């Protein structure tokens, strides 16, 4: 039908086919474009001078020596920024983050000044010549203490106005609380008081970071007639809106171009380097690039550390009748998207269980650390860590099999969620069965003999609600030769979205996916999208793409009718254009927009009949060997099962599952930002280790259950985060099964396990 660019590619059955990545060849041959390695003619480089104190008033910044260094063009502080951007603050939830520190610094590593030079090495050298004097203020690091302290990170809260539930915080003083989310269902106090068994635990997660392999990078080219950004961002539409706001310009004068991303995992959302790059380009009147080193990645955005206090009441039959969740999110010095994490994940804090009486309080808190945001799971992994440890602990205390205890309490299809929404396309039982089948759970398990190696296995299950409501727009352009081009704002950062979207277009136009070109993201031509985040793209953008392709298909049909083709004609598209325009000329343009239905949760109770358009479900099973003489844990088997609706591209689904699970294996077992008095003491890849090939479990399995998402495009839904949820608690449950110790805090590193073993033996190891 179309000009077949790949002679081997065939039309038909494009959805459900493991199409190799469309951009794969360019990537592996080093031809794909990335912001971090991009150069523009006349481009200058900026390097940043950062705060060395966690909280302090800036008494002075001495830039004189830096300015004198030959080759330095500008040394910029917030006073210079103000001359070009009078209100130099940004942020998605609060306008709380200054482009450069303004009077105060709030975390170690906060940018205080920037040096611009044509030579990045000179800029770097000049940064070393800058000095600053601070009046140090007491600092707050702990998320629980932050709720009740007289140390305040911000003098006054400044909600951005975008989110209705933050408006009441405008102008609030004397608080570190950036959002308090509540859910109330039934009567927790009464049910808990009457419960036969009561359990109360506290769990914590540590500070970890995304570490995408392309560090943060942005180039801004400012001119009076318009500004262009070359940006490693997951959300070009948001960047455009926010830059237009800072400039007081209409959006059409702001252009965001996004090449491929060397991953993002939620770190490259909202505003990161863009506002600073804009200010610097306005000052230098030339294109200015900021590109981080790996060492600087520790001072931009991290995952939220958390404390989760969970209480459950269980009746005499082993049914959970009441649950109270208090979650404290350590948001760091600037809110970024923390308040949204607090609310949108907070609503699932009680887990995938059928509990009549639920109480959830979820707090976003400011502290004097690197800001925290979304990281592959939008807060859900921190919640699952707590409730799935808690579930195992209850089962063991009740002398029940942890798996059977869960089965008794799972919220299956047709049951209400804690928000009141009826659960649909929520196959927790199928996911659980698949994990247990692959783990051979019903067979006898060898727990190891009398030696120093003890074996154990663990299970965990979880759900997540996709963030709602969000909007996506797509355009499909069919050229006169029959080839099709897709314009969509979903950023392919390695997840394979370009290929999946092309498959949907190809399915509808009946052409091979390989013949669909997906344009690089460019807000001058690609329409609006809320952002590539929270596993929303395949569902939301997928619907927009489907609608755009259907619109184009319908227009082609109309064209066929117009030129006198009979109903059901299979005339090649190229011939259709030829017939209509007399030569290879013209276009057919289809467009599609999608925003799901949504009912805002009732204030104070969080109840809503329609809080999310779809649920994600995941389960993990782990087998471990624990060396009880050293605390080392060897993972002998890790099985991850998810529900992704219909798999658009089965190979991509499989690698999303294994990739997410391995990333989370690092967070669970050893990754940790070590902090001492607000200073990061391991801010490099030499000292902050991520998993490598030798850390792979001996057996690693990735599976999905087939369960069509009834309201999804082609029955599909997102799969980017879901396999991160259960890895940590499944491992912790396995460690407990092996040697009888329960770790209440991640990571589950060898020393932590060893200390727990010694404590259990009544011979605690002395503190450091």
């Amino acid at each position: 039908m179309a000009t077949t660019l790949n002679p081997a590619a065939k039309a038909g059955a494009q959805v459900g086919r493991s199409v190799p990545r469309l951009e794969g060849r360019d990537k592996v041959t080093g031809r794909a474009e990335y912001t971090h390695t991009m150069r523009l003619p006349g481009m200058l480089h900026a390097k940043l001078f950062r705060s060395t104190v966690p909280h302090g008033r800036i008494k002075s910044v001495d830039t004189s020596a830096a300015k004198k260094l030959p080759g330095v063009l500008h040394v910029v502080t917030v006073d210079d920024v103000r001359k070009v951007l009078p209100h130099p603050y940004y942020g998605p939830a609060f306008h709380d983050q200054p482009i450069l520190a303004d009077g105060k610094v709030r975390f170690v590593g906060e940018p205080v000044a920037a040096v611009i030079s044509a030579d990045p090495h000179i800029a770097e050298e000049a940064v070393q010549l800058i000095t600053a004097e601070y009046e140090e203020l007491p600092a707050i690091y702990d998320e629980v203490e932050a709720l009740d302290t007289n140390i305040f990170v911000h003098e006054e809260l400044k909600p951005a106005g975008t989110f209705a539930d933050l408006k009441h915080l405008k102008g609030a003083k004397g608080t570190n609380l950036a959002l308090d989310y509540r859910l109330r269902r039934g009567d927790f106090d009464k049910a808990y008081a009457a419960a036969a068994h009561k359990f109360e635990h506290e769990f914590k997660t540590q500070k970890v970071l995304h570490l995408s392999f392309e560090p943060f990078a942005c180039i801004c080219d400012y001119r009076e007639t318009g500004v262009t950004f070359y940006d490693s961002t997951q959300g070009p539409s948001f960047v455009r809106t926010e830059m237009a706001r800072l400039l007081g310009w209409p959006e059409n004068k702001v252009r965001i171009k996004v090449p491929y991303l060397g991953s993002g995992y939620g770190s490259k959302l909202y505003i990161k380097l863009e506002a600073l790059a804009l200010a610097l380009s306005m000052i230098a009147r030339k294109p200015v690039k900021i590109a981080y080193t790996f060492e600087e990645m520790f001072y931009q955005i991290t995952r939220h550390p958390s404390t989760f206090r969970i209480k459950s009441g269980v009746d005499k039959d082993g049914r959970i009748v009441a649950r109270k969740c208090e979650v404290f999110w350590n948001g760091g010095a600037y809110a970024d998207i923390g308040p949204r994490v607090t609310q949108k994940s907070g609503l699932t804090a009680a887990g995938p269980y059928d509990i009549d009486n639920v109480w959830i309080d979820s707090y976003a808190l400011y502290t004097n650390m690197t800001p925290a945001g979304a990281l592959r799971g939008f807060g859900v992994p921190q919640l699952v860590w707590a409730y799935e440890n808690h579930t195992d602990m209850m089962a063991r205390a009740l002398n029940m099999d942890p798996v059977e205890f869960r089965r008794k309490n799972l919220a299956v299809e047709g049951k209400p969620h804690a928000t009141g929404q009826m659960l649909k396309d929520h196959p927790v039982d199928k996911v659980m069965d698949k994990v247990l089948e692959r783990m051979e759970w019903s067979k006898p398990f060898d727990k190891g003999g009398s030696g120093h190696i003890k074996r154990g296995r663990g299970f965990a299950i979880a759900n997540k609600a996709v963030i709602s409501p969000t909007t996506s727009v797509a355009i499909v352009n069919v050229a006169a030769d029959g080839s099709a081009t897709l314009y969509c704002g979903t950023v392919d950062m390695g997840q394979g979205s370009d290929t999946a979207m092309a498959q949907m277009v190809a399915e509808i136009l009946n052409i091979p996916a390989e013949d669909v070109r997906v344009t690089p993201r460019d807000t001058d031509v690609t329409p609006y999208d809320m952002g590539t985040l929270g596993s929303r793209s395949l569902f939301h953008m997928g619907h927009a793409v489907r609608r755009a392709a259907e619109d184009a298909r319908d227009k082609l049909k109309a064209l066929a009718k117009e030129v006198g083709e009979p109903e059901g004609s299979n005339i090649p598209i190229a011939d259709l254009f030829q017939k209509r325009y007399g030569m290879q000329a013209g276009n057919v343009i289809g467009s599609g927009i999608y925003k799901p239905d949504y009912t805002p949760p009732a204030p104070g109770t969080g109840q809503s009949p329609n809080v999310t358009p779809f649920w994600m479900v995941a389960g993990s099973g782990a087998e471990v060997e624990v060396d009880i003489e050293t605390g080392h844990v060897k993972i002998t088997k890790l099985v991850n099962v998810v529900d992704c609706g219909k798999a658009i591209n089965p190979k991509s689904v499989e690698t999303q599952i294994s990739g997410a699970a391995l990333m989370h294996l690092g967070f669970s077992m050893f990754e940790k930002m070590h902090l001492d008095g607000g200073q990061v003491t391991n801010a490099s890849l030499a000292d902050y280790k991520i998993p490598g090939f030798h850390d792979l479990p001996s057996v690693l399995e990735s599976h999905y259950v087939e369960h069509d998402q009834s309201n999804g495009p082609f029955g599909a839904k997102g799969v980017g985060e879901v396999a991160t949820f259960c890895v940590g608690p499944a491992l912790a449950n396995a460690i407990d099964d092996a040697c009888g110790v329960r770790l209440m805090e991640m990571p589950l590193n060898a020393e932590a396990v060893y200390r727990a073993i010694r404590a259990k033996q009544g011979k605690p190891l002395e503190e450091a």
Partner: protein
Amino acid sequence: MIPFELAEPTSLAAAVKLLDPDDETVRPIAGGTALMLMMKAGVFRPQKLVSLRKIEAKYSGIAASGDGLRIGAMTTLNAVERSADVKKHAPVVTRTMRTLSNVRVRNVATVGGALAHGDPHMDLPPVLMALGATLTIVGPKGERKLPLEELFTGYYETVLDKNELISEVHVPSQGAKKGAYMKVTTGSADDWPALGVAVVLDADGGAIKSARVVGSAATTKATRLKAAETVLNGKTVDDKLLKAAGDAAIEESEFIADVRGSMPYKRELMRVYVGRAVRAAMQGTGA
């Protein structure tokens, strides 16, 4: 990184002359894998680097003779890993190489650099020390010999003057002795070790005639554990003996705390791993 002078002398003698005993900002550079990290982090800011890459080729070779191996200081770790002579005369070194850092580092890092850097986390120094290696050191006044176990004086500190260079390492043939190196990591598998233990044993069946035991990484410097050796020497290996050796080892070691573990934990690791390393050597398992 600021501009600096790069000298590329073509002889070892010329390289020694270019070094300055009193200037911290002048340093030799071999593979550069460690030095470049320090320069990137801004910890070290050189005025002049003296590259050793173009010195005489004889310093980049491995020669075997009756009494063992002579390894030129500029020999890459990769060359050591792949050398048939090393495998024959010091198989414990060949096995260690597979767990040492990664292939990219091994391709450029050198034996001399791994020793002169004085970093207690390196895997090769404790193994060479357990084998009883000696160094040839060249300075302005000529050559001197030094047992490797006398090289390290502290954390990143050695007895080398700033204008002295290691030219060669002499490794006695392992012969019938048994050796093992245990790299113990607490982060990812390819992390720097939290503890390294190297043992070389002269053993007859289950009886140890003499042992050399070296601890590293958990300690301020690679350290020969003589008290542990004394416990082992002349004894037959059993669990009780190995426990006693571990207990002795921790008494004579100076531990450091870092992101890889606290001091009390590293002590426990060493207590366990001295015995495990002896067992591994006896059984011919482990690195």
